[in-house]
């Protein structure tokens, strides 16, 4: 583990920066005559993971998998229905108030017209947070200029500008500077480079890597783009319909792909090799609606290995290939599950043969 240069470190290097335990958040769907709850979008359903100090945790998944809701839960923008968030040993809602959480955790949003206030100049946008925290006007302004410089935008040219005058890459640098102005320890990046052009994306990824080293940051990097997550993340967490299906060190997950969904997601990436183009789509159909997710293993409706047991019982989380940090929730990994391929997940076998 990398050394974390942060005086605010409370629990020491072994204490995870974030312990997210059984995070659950359902959104009621109103319908009917009197607006009675007609059902619930089970956006995040019992999600458990940790974020170690100094690492980058990548979260991937398709639309409706709950990755963005997880991000919003982590920064306290929305409340939990169930579960707990522990930041460096302090439980949110207990010792840790929301205000304290925001001292340590900030978020970088996807670049869009909605990510920056169109009525504020760049300088005002970055200085707003520090000023709210009691930093004097002059100091907040100086901080804003320093950060602009740091993210590669000359303050003299940009401080007085409005967001609509900037390009996507520039706006995203401002988004990053705004989060850093709060001097966070953890930055949640929710699709932070997804809207950018490839050549600009690479610039921003380099910038993020530099900033991480310079400020001793920890990242939770959320993206639908596996290539990007593979490049930036130390560990990867794959979500499907509000649940974690697999989590582990990037290279481990890449090599083993213990869960059939992970395997399909990876196989769905365009090949980049003109002589070995994808011949068969790894999955059919769209991801199901999270309002009424399938029973048992939520992936069983699209899984080629699904058996009766998959629709009946929720798979337990098992350790993959004896590596304690690599976990996946699939009946085929659980010897006692009753799945005919239990203990011999086909995706794993393929890898062993190689």
């Amino acid at each position: 583990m990398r050394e974390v240069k942060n005086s605010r470190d409370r629990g020491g290097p072994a204490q995870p920066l974030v312990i997210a335990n059984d995070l659950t958040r359902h959104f009621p769907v109103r319908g009917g005559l009197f607006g009675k709850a007609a059902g619930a979008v089970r956006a995040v359903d019992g999600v458990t993971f940790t974020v170690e100090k100094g690492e980058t945790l990548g979260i991937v998944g398709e639309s409706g998998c709950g990755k963005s809701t997880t991000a919003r839960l982590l920064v306290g923008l929305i409340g939990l229905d169930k579960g707990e968030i522990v930041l460096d040993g302090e439980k949110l809602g207990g010792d840790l108030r929301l205000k304290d959480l925001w001292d340590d955790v900030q978020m970088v949003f996807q670049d869009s017209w909605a990510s920056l206030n169109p009525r504020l100049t760049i300088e005002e946008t970055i200085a707003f947070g520090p000023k709210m925290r009691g930093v004097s006007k002059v100091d907040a302004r100086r901080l804003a200029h320093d950060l602009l410089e740091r993210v590669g935008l000359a303050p003299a040219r940009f401080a007085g500008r409005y967001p609509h005058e900037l390009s996507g890459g520039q706006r995203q640098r401002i988004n990053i500077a705004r989060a850093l102005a709060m001097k966070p320890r953890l930055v949640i990046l929710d699709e932070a480079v997804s809207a950018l052009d490839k050549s600009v994306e690479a610039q921003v990824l380099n910038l993020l890597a530099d900033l991480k080293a310079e400020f001793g940051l920890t990242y939770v990097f959320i993206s639908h783009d596996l290539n990007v997550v593979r490049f930036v993340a130390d560990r990867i967490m794959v979500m499907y319909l509000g649940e974690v299906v697999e989590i582990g060190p990037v290279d481990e997950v890449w090599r083993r792909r213990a869960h059939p969904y992970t395997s399909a997601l990876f196989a769905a990436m365009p090949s980049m090799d003109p002589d070995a183009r994808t011949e068969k789509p790894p999955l059919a159909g769209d991801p199901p609606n999270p309002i009424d997710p399938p029973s048992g293993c939520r992936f069983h409706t699209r899984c080629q290995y699904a058996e009766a047991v998959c629709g009946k019982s929720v798979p337990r989380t098992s350790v993959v290939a004896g590596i304690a940090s690599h976990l996946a929730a699939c009946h085929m990994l659980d010897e006692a599950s009753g799945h005919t391929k239990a203990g011999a997940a086909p995706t794993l076998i393929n890898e062993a043969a190689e």
Partner: protein
Amino acid sequence: MSPLMEIRDLTVRFHGERTVHAVNGLDLTLQPGEVITILGESGSGKSVTLKALLKLLPEKRTEIGGTMTVDGIDVTALTGRRLSDYRGKAVSMIFQEPMLALDPVYTIGDQIAEAVRRHDRVSRTKAMDIALDMLTRVRIPSPERRLRNYPHEMSGGMRQRAMIALALACRPKLLLADEPTTALDATVQIQVLLLLRELQKEFGMGIVFVTHDIGVAVEISDRIAVMYAGNIVEEGTVSEIIKDPRHPYTKGLLAANLHGATRGTSLASIPGSPPPLDARPNNCAFAPRCAHAREECLEALPPVFRPGPGRRVACVLERGQSEMVLPARTPEAA
């Protein structure tokens, strides 16, 4: 064999609060049954080129120069009845957002049948049969039921398939695809790409596919044309572009794609961003971002070289390595 589509020296200029030179002297040829991808970033003029081909650009504010021929039809001269015959029958288009192409108040079946009847004199029942056949061909499960669905009742991937069915209902010879898979989830995107590939073979049509994603281009196309600042900087087969990129911009794009990039290293990124196109470039538009830029790059437009058959590169670095086909064009006085 005469080409299916031939674009010669296309220029598109928008007038408004400020003038934008979106496309600047673009040449592009497509053979029948061929799939070409125009690869470019936002602002490169790739979508504008497609819209120009269908005459979808606002006439009042747009100035179009050059020639466009599709299947022997001179596109620039088309108006009225002949234009609407051309759209749909000769050329059709699919978009990133299917909700823009599909009418929310009609069922999928009605819309496809209506499109068929607009071009062919067939009975309503026959048109509906064609619609059903189209839905089956785009692999929509239980097509009879889907025929009666409204667009909002379908999932994203289904809508995309319905839009493809609508676009192909009149068997166009040329399909224009404007980032049709960009908004889709990864597992759905690959399904749609493979579907388009199969339909292309089945119908024998030509496709001009526009995307910013190299991976998608590799999956779908025979050839790739890399576009930058309103012109094509490099063109070649997929293998040539991926394995032997010549233009520094193409090389930069490939490096920025992260495929096989090593974690913990700094990415070889292209610095800066595309130029504002408020004037027509009179030098290499990529030169300000290029690590190999020389004096001559800033002085004139780059000559176009031909390193091989069907291959072209607009960069001075090719000089001495391959045959020159077009000396640096001097743009007319702006």
